[in-house]
């Protein structure tokens, strides 16, 4: 309801498409409905301890105090603006947990981010854009960084040895004592049973729906991989 005039925080008010007040309220209600919410937000008396302890606030136009304030005031317009922008500047270090009133702006942001992702907000898509490759790797293989991702041109700062290692990657991996690490396409050996269980978890817990909302291309690639593998294992599952 409040009118914003020349908002000095660098919250680019029209950076993302504006939505109806009802939609903003719905998103806020979803944040508020999170079970953790009421343990993360009490009241705020503007002491600034959270901002003082915040590493992101030193580098970005970001204020955990504004997060707590906006939520405490239930300022639906501002909350939406923050969800489309500021919440992605938080480094989730939770230094702000030292709040004397017991608030946790960082954990409130965790909830807001989850809501942003669940609802496919533009800011969430943008923030997660750079992580598509990692999400693909984790979700399809169950391991995060794999040795074959260490291509020399991607990591020039790793020095000259990276070339030598990349050329003989399989040999280097076999030099490692645990047999489970003799892999190049995954970080370690992932058993069939594990991967099938992971796929079932992604499916049953709604993670695939999240991915679909955030990155449809990634979703389609994952579905191809997963459906085939699940079918081989005797599961008749479709992701849509």
């Amino acid at each position: 309801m409040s009118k914003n005039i020349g908002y000095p925080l660098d919250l680019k008010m029209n950076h993302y498409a504006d939505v109806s007040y009802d939609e903003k309220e719905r998103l806020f209600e979803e944040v508020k409905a999170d079970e953790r919410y009421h343990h993360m937000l009490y009241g705020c008396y503007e002491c600034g301890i959270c901002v003082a302890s915040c590493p992101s606030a030193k580098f970005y136009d970001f204020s955990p105090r504004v997060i707590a304030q906006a939520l405490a005031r239930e300022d639906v317009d501002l909350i939406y603006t923050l969800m489309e922008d500021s919440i992605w500047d938080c480094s989730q270090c939770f230094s702000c947990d030292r709040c004397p009133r017991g608030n946790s702006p960082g954990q409130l942001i965790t909830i807001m981010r989850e809501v942003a992702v669940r609802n496919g907000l533009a800011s969430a898509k943008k923030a997660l854009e750079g992580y598509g490759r990692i999400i693909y790797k984790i979700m399809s293989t169950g391991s995060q960084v794999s040795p074959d991702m260490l291509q020399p041109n991607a990591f020039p700062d790793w020095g000259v040895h990276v070339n030598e290692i990349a050329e003989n990657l399989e040999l280097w991996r076999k030099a490692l004592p645990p047999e489970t690490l003799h892999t190049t396409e995954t970080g370690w050996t992932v058993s069939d049973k594990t991967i099938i269980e992971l796929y079932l978890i992604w499916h049953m817990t709604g993670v695939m729906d999240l991915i679909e909302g955030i990155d449809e291309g990634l979703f389609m690639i994952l579905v191809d991989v997963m459906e085939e593998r699940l079918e081989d294992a005797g599961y008749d599952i479709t992701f849509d």
Partner: protein
Amino acid sequence: MANQNILIIGGGPAGIEAAKGVAAMGFKAILVEKRDRLGGTPDEAQYAALTPDLRDAETALNEMKAPLEGNPNVEVMYNTLVTGASGSLGDFTIKAIQMGKEVEIKAGAVIISTGFTHFDPGRETQKYGYYEFDDVITLTDAEKMLKAHNFVRPSNGEKPKRVCFIQCVGSRDRRLGNEYCSKVCCGMASKQAIEIRQLLPDCKVFIFYIDMRMYGYWENEIYWPAQEKHKVNYVKGMATEIVRSGDKLLVKGEDTTLRRPMEIPMDMVILSVGMEPSEGTKQMASIFGIGQNKYGFIETTGGPLDTVSTSVPGVFAAGACTGPADLEDSVSMGGLAAMKAMIAVRQADAVPA
């Protein structure tokens, strides 16, 4: 021998407490009250609930003054105004007018507890339009409505959807000459905000403030519950102007936390008016020749370690006639003034003139 009467001027919480103490110790308490009933400002302004415990004000005041009734050591003189004083410690002669008749009172010591008056919002230095807009009211106006459990917009009788308080109206303002903090308005506003939220759960309540000053237990008894349980919105930043916008009021100010000017529509605005010395306080200071501070309150001379002695021996002051005071202060000072007055009378006898 010194006169054993203690004259108490003003029958508010400080005066009642002083009279009770004097009587209980076997001295005679003469309690002079200009109105026809005791209770002082909390009664006159029809407080709904006391700050900070939200106890029903009428019940609490009745309970407080009950021991005075039928007490052989207490004489309450209603409808009485003190008009003159002579004498000194141990032997004061006070002239008063009771229902048009002049009366004379003898007393060994005097306690002044003539209290405060609420700041007149017509004198504020911003542009709040108290006398212009029906829906701009004061804490005292709001208190009366809350007591009647009928909190509605004066302009149209409808229940408000958005209400805000503006703090420090008439306080902490060099241009007005009232540089002091009135001490109780933060607590009162927060208490009323809670009451409004309880009465009208759909009504949003905002408090615009410079600093919230809720010392001691008022912090967790009023401030925190108002924010955390009753979802009162505290906005650090003051309003400077109220204008009409359709049938709403538009409050202009700065939201300093979010670093932006604000123009917020409201259905009602409550001005948190501060305290000024009452007419009675200024008159008593003049009649007894007691030093006043530059704001017109009676000046106590003992610093923080003696809160009730004045520049005249045998004359003590208690409660909000000495400056902004809450009920806790007033009642504590009333008890202390009673004790100091009795000690003064005793010592006047012990030391030969």
